[in-house]
């Protein structure tokens, strides 16, 4: 059964089979979280920046249709062709159609989690169009035929030795080479060649400005620039929630994004794309894919504020110890766990339970999404919709009935303690998941209630 399930707990179980690897994964991400702390604690205005960003996003979401129309008008006026996609399928069709129209069968892509969400690469591959991801981490997972395990650090789960093996197999480095400098140089040469020979480039969008119709793409490697500037057709895919009203707001978001993501003061490249250069075509695909449905769900609306910094993943003690792939969705970690059930409640019913509700995610979030509260709310929704295990429901009903009645509670408590005391093997066995890695509590002779009753009696006597 191992490895075949799509449940977070089972996938995390597999990940945890190699404890040293879990330690390494945890420490690597904790290092990033610590860098984020240093970067944010140095800014006196950090908490007010978060507040402003949250309010700007709130305002934008509350007036989303107005801003989308404004953005479309401005973009068209700038000479950009605007497309609308209701869902992933429509997005993929639009991109594919644009490429086929120009007879293009090879495209370079900068990192875009939206295209991961839409499974664009597979869609295009099935139609004979090759896509090369140009973000280094994304290229590595692409070579490994995996999904990114993190939205900012797509191959954070891979060690340099494993990357060396992949490069040896696909890019011709020497066997056993794991020197980061050599591997990076190899990737650089390989991607240079790709940039120079592709006529089409697709980029994601970090922020789209309604006022000007421009969009901003943030990369640390400059790969979005390289792709877009050398191509004759630039396609930008964006979720409709990426809008901000004015250019002036960018200052707030650009300061928050990278500090939260990696602890850098600002991304190496914040590239503004406004109009196509002469002879180039520029297209923007505005994708809904469930976003308007989430907007209509009051409890989960705030999740659309997300600017995809990944801070919630780095801080999440569960993510650090279960790995991004255990979330079996393009966007992993706490934020993914509240976005995924919106797309498919049945497939992703396990994700809101992959959390201890410790609340750290909500407090690192640069736009103040109440992530852990939404996880709690999703649990209620999913149970009500019937997407939970029947055995769990039965156990919960029994538990609720016992705990609602003082008499039943007293009896059950006594029986439980007696069982633990006199027949511990009834609970200390392999069927008890607690006992697998932990000892059970030792039962006292008396409950507090019993002790209190006897003390009261003595006092009265």
């Amino acid at each position, binding site marked *: 059964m191992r490895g075949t399930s799509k449940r977070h*707990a089972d996938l*995390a179980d597999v*990940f*945890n089979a190699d*404890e040293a690897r879990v330690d390494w994964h*945890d420490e690597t991400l*904790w290092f990033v979280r610590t860098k984020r*702390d240093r970067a*944010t*604690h140095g*800014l006196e205005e*950090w*908490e007010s920046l978060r507040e402003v960003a949250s309010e700007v996003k709130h305002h934008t979401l509350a007036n989303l249709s107005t801003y989308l129309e404004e953005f479309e008008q401005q973009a068209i006026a700038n000479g950009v062709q605007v497309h609308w996609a209701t869902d992933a399928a429509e997005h993929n069709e639009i991109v594919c159609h644009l490429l086929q129209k120009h007879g293009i069968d090879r495209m370079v892509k900068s990192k875009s989690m939206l295209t991961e969400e839409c499974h664009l690469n597979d869609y295009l591959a099935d139609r004979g169009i090759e896509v090369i991801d140009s973000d280094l981490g994304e290229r590595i997972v692409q070579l490994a035929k995996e999904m990114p395990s993190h939205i900012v650090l797509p191959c954070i789960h891979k060690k340099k030795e494993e990357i060396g093996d992949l490069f040896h197999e696909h890019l011709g480095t020497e066997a056993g080479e794991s020197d980061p400098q050599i591997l990076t140089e190899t990737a650089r040469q390989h991607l240079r060649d790709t940039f120079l020979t592709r006529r089409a480039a697709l980029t994601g969008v970090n922020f789209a400005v309604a006022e000007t119709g421009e969009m901003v793409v943030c990369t640390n490697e400059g790969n979005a620039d390289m792709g877009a500037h050398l191509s004759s057709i630039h396609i930008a895919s964006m979720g409709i929630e990426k809008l901000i009203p004015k250019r002036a707001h960018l200052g707030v978001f650009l300061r928050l994004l990278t500090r939260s993501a990696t602890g850098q003061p600002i991304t190496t490249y914040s590239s503004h794309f406004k109009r196509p250069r002469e002879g180039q075509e520029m297209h923007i695909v505005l994708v809904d894919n469930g976003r308007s449905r989430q907007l209509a769900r009051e409890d989960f609306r705030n999740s659309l504020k997300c600017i995809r910094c990944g801070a919630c993943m780095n*801080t999440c*003690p*569960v993510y650090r*110890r279960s790995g991004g792939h255990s979330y079996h969705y393009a966007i992993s970690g706490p934020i993914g766990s509240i976005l995924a059930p919106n797309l498919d409640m049945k497939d992703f019913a396990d994700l809101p*339970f992959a*959390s*201890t*509700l*410790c*609340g*750290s995610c*909500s*407090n*690192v979030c640069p736009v103040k999404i109440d992530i852990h509260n939404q996880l*709690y709310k999703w*649990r*209620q929704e999913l*149970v*009500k919709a019937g997407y939970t295990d029947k055995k*769990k429901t039965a156990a*919960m*009903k029994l*538990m*609720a*009935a016992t*705990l*609602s*009645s*003082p008499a039943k*509670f007293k009896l059950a408590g006594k029986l439980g*303690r007696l069982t633990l005391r006199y027949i511990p093997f009834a609970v200390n066995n392999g069927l008890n*998941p*607690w006992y*697998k*890695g*932990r*000892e059970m*509590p030792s039962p*006292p002779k*008396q*409950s*507090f*209630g*019993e*002790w*209190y*009753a006897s003390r009261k009696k003595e006092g009265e006597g």
Partner: protein
Amino acid sequence: MEVALFVPCYVDQFYPQVAQASLELLERLGVRVVYPEGQTCCGQPMANSGYEHLTGGCNENFIRHFDGYEYIVSPSGSCVLHLKEHLSSDKNKQQAVAIRPRIYELTEFLTDVLQVEELEARFPYKVGMHQSCHGQRGLKLSQMSELTAPMFSKPGKLLHMVKDIELVTLDRGDECCGFGGTFCVAEEAVSVKMGKDRVADHLRHDAEYITGADMSCLMHMEGVLKRAKSKTKVIHIAEILNSSI
């Protein structure tokens, strides 16, 4: 002053000494403590598992036993947070609304209401303090490392009043222990790993005891410590504040 003591179900059954210490401590500080008999559970185990709709019986039972008290105090941050956020009733709406803000976690009651500035307690050991998430981030008993705000800690302040105690500094001040209610069995592998890592931080700094304001986290870490046959023990903060070794 009169206080109603709420003893969470698992504390009642497995850790009566924690409730006894809470009761004695409050009495020593001049508070009259009432323990409404017949109380059971706050409903959190069901609610956090997605079954908040099954907590009606627990809510009614809680309201029946605690309605009318000015202060309700409990030695468990997560149960207190659950009640503060979710105690509700269709039958007794007014009572439920009135009770919510009257519920206090023990250490916040000591620092904020009783405004305790000194304690007659002695505990000559090296102690690591576990910041339980629901108490820390939910009830704001301590500042959290994620926010850029001045540090404070209500349980920490109280522990500093204890004679001869040596508090150790942890590498990760506010990492979750991995208990998480039913998470501890539903996500057994990750939960155990989190527990082991949390305990290891305390052990690395030679803690003889791990303390905290939420017995559920301590129960989890106790299970991990015992499995590893460690000499380090867990002890609820009420027991330390009430001790005079």
